[in-house]
């Protein structure tokens, strides 16, 4: 492919693409900038995509600390409580020989959030530095990150069902703790961060003439 001639993009042709329904509108004369078909706000690129994505990523990193340090739930049995963090929950599963489940929870609760934050930071920095390296692979990386993030919610649902089911009063009951709220917030923030990012910025940088 010839790198010197910029490919014809919607932005280059003076067209706005609706991110919600895919309709193309002419930029000239569109008042209020709303899609005439589905009503979504129209922008050439998502507004302030880099700043908003950074803000959400940084908020997620900050909350990631209490999410892992604080207990997510406590099993109270015969008056004695055993607080569990996300990591100690995985270790318990390993100790009871349930290694497939331990692997599942480890991937969903620990690996995916860390990788997702790492990928988002990498994409943000690569776009900000005008990087032209393998835009197709970086776009694919973004798509996978966007799809995988929601699976981190699994631990929240495990706690929901444990706390809901084990309500045997003095004998045993399970309570959720503050770590779970922090972890839920991390998952929501990383999902919002992926939604705020605009993968077309990867290509804008790749299409730009070298400085």
């Amino acid at each position, binding site marked *: 492919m010839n790198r010197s001639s910029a490919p014809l993009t919607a932005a280059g042709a003076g067209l706005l693409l609706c991110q919600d329904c895919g309709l193309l509108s002419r930029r000239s004369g569109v008042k209020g900038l709303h899609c005439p078909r589905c009503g979504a706000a129209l922008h050439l690129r998502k507004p302030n995509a880099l700043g908003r994505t950074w803000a959400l990523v940084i908020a997620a990193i900050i909350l990631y600390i209490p999410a892992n340090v604080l207990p997510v739930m406590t099993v109270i049995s015969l008056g004695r409580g055993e607080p569990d963090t996300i990591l100690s929950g995985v270790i318990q599963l390993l100790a009871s020989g349930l290694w497939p489940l331990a692997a599942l929870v480890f991937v969903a609760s620990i690996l995916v959030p860390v990788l997702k934050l790492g990928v988002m930071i990498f994409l943000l920095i690569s776009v900000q530095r005008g990087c032209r390296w393998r835009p197709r692979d970086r776009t694919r990386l973004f798509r996978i990150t966007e799809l995988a993030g*929601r699976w981190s919610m699994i631990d929240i649902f*495990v706690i*929901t069902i444990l706390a809901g089911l084990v309500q045997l009063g003095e004998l045993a009951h399970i309570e*959720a703790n503050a770590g779970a709220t922090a972890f839920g917030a991390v998952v929501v923030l990383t999902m919002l961060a992926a939604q705020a990012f605009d993968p077309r910025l990867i290509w804008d940088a790749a299409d730009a003439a070298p400085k």
Partner: protein
Amino acid sequence: MNPAVRSPATGRPQDSIQPWVACPDCDLLHRRAPLPSRGQARCRRCGALFYRNPSRMLEQCLALTLTALALFTLANLFPLLNLRLGGREEALTLIEGALTFLDQGHWGLAGLVFFTSLLFPLLRLLGLAYVLLPLWRGRIPPRLGPVFRWTQAFSPWSMAEIFLLGGLVAAVKLGDMAAIIPGTAAYAFIGMIFINAWIGFKLEPRMIWDRAPMHVA
């Protein structure tokens, strides 16, 4: 099949740009081409999926949506899981599961679980039924564009299948200390999740967008 497309600014037909599609991921313009049945169109630069041409999309998605709604209703009427321990028995329904955190004072978690495991899956199915039923009968429902936009927006936040996997992990975790018996709702819920996945596979949003009218705002 396409309704007349008009410019939002002038109200004049906009036919000249409608043969074009832009890639949502890399913004490259492509000429829209008819697809063979079950074919798919992808961006030639970044590989993003543009659209597919599934056969009998409307009626199959409608049938699946109505089935999923029926199963979802069942999943809410009966207990999801029963726990038996030392002569005591506890039953948990879906809504109780979602609201447990409220009793324990974690309203943020309660909201998150309620929205992602109950409300968003329900709104997504209701939105699909609202859009698909009239279209299948050859009519355009009022405010099709905005309703379908919201239905699509709920999709990533509708986490019924993740909730189910979480339930499975919880049941195995408790397996040592108590007997866990899946209730009627568990089977309905599993059925609904498979049908949800099938809808996700079958639904081609562009076929619905093509039928949505333009409003000059």
